[in-house]
């Protein structure tokens, strides 16, 4: 494995890892607020589920970038 491949792997890992951290942080905050809201208004379950799922896009986009790094650049390298 040459150094370029290693750097590509680190880049891909950072793309998905940092996005996952951001998603986790956002979901943690939404989750705690949502749990509080649910005790008061259980009928908000659907809306809170949507809000909780929204930040997941971040990690999926991070994953898309990581996949592109590996599949496109990796294959080219």
């Amino acid at each position: 494995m040459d150094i370029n491949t290693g750097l590509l792997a680190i880049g891909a890992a950072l793309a998905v890892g940092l996005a996952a951290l951001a998603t986790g942080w956002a979901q943690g905050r939404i989750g705690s607020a949502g749990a509080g809201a649910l005790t008061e208004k259980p009928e908000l379950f659907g809306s809170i589920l949507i809000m909780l799922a929204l930040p997941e896009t971040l990690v999926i986009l991070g994953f898309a970038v990581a996949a592109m790094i590996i599949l496109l650049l990796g294959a080219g390298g």
Partner: protein
Amino acid sequence: MLLPMSKVQIVGFKERLEATLRVIQRLGTLQVQDVTEHGQGPMVPRLALDAKAKAQRDEINLLAARLESFANVLVPSIAPTSLPRYYAAATRKNTEELIAEANHLIDALGPKSQELVLRRDGLEAEQTSLIRYQATLRKVLPLAANIPRLAGYEILALLIERRSSAVLESVRQKLGELVGDNFDVNVRHIDEQTTAAIFVFPKERSAEVNALFGQQSISPLRLPQELAGTSLTDTLAAMERRLSEIPEAIKSVEVELRQLGESWWFSVRLLQAEMRDRVAQMEVVGMVGGTRYAFVLVGWMPQRNVEDLKKALAQRVGPEVLVNEFRVSREEMKQAPVALANPPVVRPFEFLVALTALPRYGALDPTPLMAFFMPLFFGLILADIAYGLVLLLLATLTLRYCRKRLYRSLAQIMLLCGFWSILFGIIFGEFLGTLGHRLFHLEPLWMERSGATVKPLFLFAVALGAAHVLLGFMLGIWQALRVKGRKELSERLGKFIALIAVFWLAAVLAGTLPRDLTTPGIVALIIGIVLLSIPMGWLGGILAPLETLGIVSNVLSYLRLAAIGLSSFYLAEVANELYGVATNVAVGTIIACLLHALNLAIGIVSATIASLRLHYVEFFPKFFESGGVSFRPFKETEV
């Protein structure tokens, strides 16, 4: 689909209102609307219950509460599940008959059931206290064997922790100061933790001695009154005798309660249901309009039930009660309550749609689309024959043994998800990861979800997402054309064209389409952005390109179908590898089974959440118009 609704007005003589409400409630197809909120025709004031009706309502409520207390102690005489059938078939009484029947039942049932319940409670309380006494007396007995219960003297026994036994000496001294030599104390350490003591003292000093114990925070054991005057040995024997009699006595009370239940439970439950329904009828009167001689009732009901209501009212109340269907404007129709009516296979998904919001009346019901795409997405994520089979098994067992509607709906959804998981499992050749390949050479129909072959999987996920999102836009465009919403049409058409253009250009860049097609792609993108920017006003020039990026990210979001699926596949592989690493076959099997079970559990949760999210966040906003109010017909309570 949404059930087509009609707005109806029912007019009749006031004295027929009770009978009319009874018929409407029995049919259970009309949602009564407050007459003053109805915008058409002359304003009619609301009817109010007269003093007699109010008194009857209060009396029914009171009688219902009393009946409830009796009914709770009765043992059901038939299976409670068959009660609704009987209630539906029973004829209804008028209010006076209802009150008379309730009073009759309370008179016939009340004294006997109260007496039985009191007797049973008393026996149970006696049993509990005797068991407590017995345990303590057994410990005290060696100390106090054959102490006679002397007339004029009281005996107090107590058990205290051994380490606190020094307090007994102080009690003895104070007792001496209180009653002189006229007392006796016997103390013995029973075991390593407990010390027992017996105090005998004149009965007339009982209050002072008890106060003394109170000051020392000691609670002596008091024997039941009926055992006074006997020795402790005799007391213990009497207690054992009584304890052996009590279960029989309780059983005989239970038999009597069962007999009482067989005679009355059925009548009580039916009468309670009818009383609840009568009170509900009286509450509805407050929404009905009235003149001096007539009542006017307005409400919404499914179009298909209007004729049935007309016939039922004509037959059971009389031809003079009129039912008119209103001509309702498009704007007012938006206020109509929403009832979903889908085929049985789609119906379980209705509650998943309602988790966010109900569609507005007249809008498109997304339930059938969700019933197709949600299990498909789930199956694409889980994609394993074995996991799918487990899901099918769990769903079948739930449908076989569970009666709760929610669980049955979930099981029906799980059945479809299991089916798609098996189908995609066959396509990807997965049976507990690659175990199927190793054990019985299972080959994928299309491709494996691993290594270098994941690129087509990503492309497939994105293509599926693009198709799903474009379908959403097409439905949105159709919806906008139907309601002649120009802004919505321009926005949705713009997004639709822009999305196609972006993928067109991506295909050109990837070399899938020839370079000559770049210009048409750019032109289409510009047309899309322009159309999208029109409803946004002067900010459109900035916001429309950003919106276009948002739509692309919507489509990329479908990558999760591949990403979560891959993680599930690799966890299954870890389970299989751990089996190979373990030195002992049994240990390896247990570890692999546990990991596969964990993978299945995680897979079910994450696949469900991801598929739901793709619908709620990516798909619905393209066409879904929320804001519907659930249809709540005025109907009899479920027994």
